[in-house]
């Protein structure tokens, strides 16, 4: 019987396991299906990781390396090349590995840290032929950075998510010609710094409010057709541009990898595609926690780390102190301008100093006020100069303020006239 089984050895799993160790758990197991720890960071060889957490710029593998180093000083057990196939509602974890065999392990608590996967062409139903040469940006990143192969020479990128932007630069530096980055929304889905450093610096045009409307080529991509879209995101006939290219990279969103979560009967939030969680990242199944990209898609690994440390600490408390009394709960409601929040509900009685609240806005906003209300009562307000769906927002709600709320907390955005 383990105190904690962590599923996934990416930054979320690593930080969660370390935190649980520090909080006093001793029988901890990390199960990772890859041959090494680090998760998706291993293929992110660009820098820009750790600015918040370590206050310095690290590459993905360097960032992961720091945590792997920390883990070495603990007694946390790691099983690599081992995939979890099933988690039961009795916290039995079925896993299989070439060297570790097929095993069923029991745990007092579980941290789900499986990360996410990329949306594919099929998910967005791009019409046309189905040749080779259409890759998700992450798959292309893996080929280039880990396998040492360039998947194509003339590239169009659909979607301006961060991975797509990073790959625009990466492919260019490897000698490919990136012809365009095409985004269906009127704003980019990626971080502003990536637009500047990965597109502008290399003269790669960004077509906002455009999408790919046809793919041509029988065996390998030969052309893609790009059209402008109207405000209902429908292609406008007559605006077609044809690009001669051999590759289309897709950076059209990430989907939390929650098959195990669903199987276990844990409640899922259709807005995040992750488990519904409490303030301490506990899911609807007591003793099972979720953090990192499996809970909601993060842009910055630093936040993954912080969130997972909270989850790891909470798992330790669950094991050491037992299940706390339910207490009152506040439901968090998405008000105007907000597309989701994590957590989705809070037990004020379990918040020590303050509750971290993450959310995304559903449109680009200029100077704004983030308002938190309960019923008719305003609990807190925060101002921001700029808000965009591509950048996750974070606010801290002090325990004192939560105690003044009842039943629901509503988070909404109010744009303010700039002085």
């Amino acid at each position, binding site marked *: 019987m383990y105190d904690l089984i962590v599923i996934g050895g990416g930054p979320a799993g690593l930080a969660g396991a370390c935190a649980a160790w520090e909080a006093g758990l001793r029988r901890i197991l990390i199960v990772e299906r890859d041959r090494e720890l680090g998760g998706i960071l291993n293929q992110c060889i660009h820098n820009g990781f750790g600015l918040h957490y370590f206050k310095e710029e690290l590459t993905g593998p360097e960032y992961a390396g720091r945590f792997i180093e920390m883990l070495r000083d603990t007694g946390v057990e790691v099983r690599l090349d081992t995939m979890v*196939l099933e988690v039961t509602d009795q916290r039995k974890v*079925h896993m*299989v590995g070439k060297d570790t065999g097929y095993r069923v392990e029991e745990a007092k608590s579980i941290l789900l840290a499986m990360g996410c996967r990329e949306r*594919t062409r099929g*998910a967005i*139903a791009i019409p046309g032929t189905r*040749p080779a040469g259409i890759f998700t940006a992450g798959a292309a990143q893996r080929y280039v950075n880990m396998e040492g192969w360039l998947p194509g020479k003339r590239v169009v990128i659909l979607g301006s998510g961060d991975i797509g932007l990073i790959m625009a630069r990466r492919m260019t530096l*490897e000698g490919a010609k990136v012809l365009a980055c095409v985004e269906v929304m009127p704003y980019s889905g990626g971080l502003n710094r990536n637009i500047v450093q990965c597109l502008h610096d290399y003269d790669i045009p960004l077509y906002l409010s455009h999408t790919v409307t046809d793919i041509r080529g029988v*065996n390998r991509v030969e052309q893609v057709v790009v059209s402008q879209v109207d405000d209902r995101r429908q292609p406008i006939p007559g605006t077609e541009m044809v690009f001669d290219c051999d590759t289309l990279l897709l950076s059209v969103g990430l989907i939390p990898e929650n098959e195990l979560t669903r199987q276990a009967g844990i409640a899922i939030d259709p807005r995040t595609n992750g488990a519904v969680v409490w303030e301490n990242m506990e899911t609807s199944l007591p003793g099972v926690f979720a953090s990192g990209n499996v809970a909601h898609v993060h842009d910055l690994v630093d936040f993954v780390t912080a969130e997972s440390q909270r989850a790891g600490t909470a798992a330790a408390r669950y094991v050491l102190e037992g299940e706390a009394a339910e207490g009152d709960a506040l439901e968090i409601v998405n008000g105007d301008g907000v597309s989701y929040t994590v957590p989705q509900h809070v037990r004020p009685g379990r918040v020590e100093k303050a509750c971290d609240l993450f959310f995304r806005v559903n449109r680009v906003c200029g100077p704004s006020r983030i308002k938190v209300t309960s019923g008719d009562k305003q609990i807190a307000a925060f101002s921001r100069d700029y808000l965009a769906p591509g950048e996750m927002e974070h606010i801290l709600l002090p325990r004192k303020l939560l105690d003044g709320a009842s039943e629901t907390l509503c988070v909404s955005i109010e744009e303010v006239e700039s002085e």
Partner: protein
Amino acid sequence: MYDVLIIGCGIVGAATAFELSKYQLKVGIVERENDVANGTTKANSAIIHAGYDPMPGSLMARLNVRGSALARELCAQLDVPYLPCGSLVLGFSTEDEVLLKELFRRGTQNGVPGLALLTGDEARALEPNLSPAVTAALHAPSAAICSPWEYCLALAETAVRNGAQLHLETAVTGLTPTADGWRVETSRGVLDARYVVNAAGLDAQAVHEMAAPSSFTIHPSRGEYFLLDKSEGDRVGRVIFQCPSRVGKGVLVAPTVHGNLIVGPNAEPVEGDDTATTAGGLAYVRQTALRSVPSVEFRASIRNFAGVRASTDREDFIIEEAAPHFLDLAGICSPGLSAAPAIGEYAVELLGQAGLALERKADFTASRKRVRFRELPPEEKARLVAEQPAYGRVICRCETVTEGEILDALSGPIPPRSVDGVKRRAGAGLGRCQGGFCGPRVLELLAREQGRSPGDIPQDKAGSWLLACETKGGHADV
């Protein structure tokens, strides 16, 4: 010198080869592509039709009903995913109800077992997600679903294990009659055969015209699909049709044997084998399907695809000796998948009538088995991994396909040459991430086991290259 040479290794060519391999004959199959099941056979609705649709007395009717019965046995024998889930044809109006009654009559005449006409409420009792607008339905319990490419592979592999020779990446370019049969020119040299069978699908007209005067025209008709995630797999438990029209059986909503939901097809005339999907076609499919099952969640789409029917200017399958020792199996549009094993049997019968000596082999092997790790109970999984650790390494995370299963595929009677070849055999890449995760790993295994450079391995058909060149090398610091 082959006794019989079959041109084309889709389901029809494969079924014919399977049937012929039961006899003491030298059988050859030539296939243009680098794998079997790479034409219409891999892109269709995957339904083993009950057989109420074709006109009584037609070849289609007879071979469909017989083929469906054979499919049940063959799929069990050859370890092909097959599920006898039954089907419903929906009616939404009094005109539809007239048609349903007509289908019921036809089906009864064709010998389809168990047909029943239901009211809308009775249909909804079977399938709660059907539209409230459904007023009547025809229930055909003998309809089934299968994995069409595995079906074709199983038949072709069994034929090969029983001595048939398969020539992949070999296109037939000309046919010349000789004293004792045919000289078959191919992209890889000349082959001689006493009998030639034309199972070239969409190219059957072209192949026919290499051997005989023109006698039919193929009018290709494309059907487009959505394949939805397993989260939608339980939306319906049966194949849900609308009333058929002259151009096709209409848009259906059906489970697949892999646990997904398939929705389609439309019917659009196209040139040749144009399997592109179109915005208009997909929009039509979506709207039409929602009439039957309004709750289908199209956001769960994981793939679109299209297949092209080899429809002709004749109403029926074209199965006849078009020239001495030259047999056409042409115009095999729907229900060709269902009818295939019966077409194979009938082809052998016709070859026998044309003088081919048919003597049974004593040592015909008609079984096939493959490991499907995911479906095993935990104890079996544990035992298998303990014996052979390769079954413990999961390569495709969406479908839980292991390295062991991929190695099995690579050492099978018809080894795959492409990433999609592995997908068709082992299922890696069929799932929701569509090979995004396992693609590089499958490529690595193919390269390692076959001693090829990753750069030479295609996604699917020859020319569908995946990797342009090696990177500048080392760990670039970007």
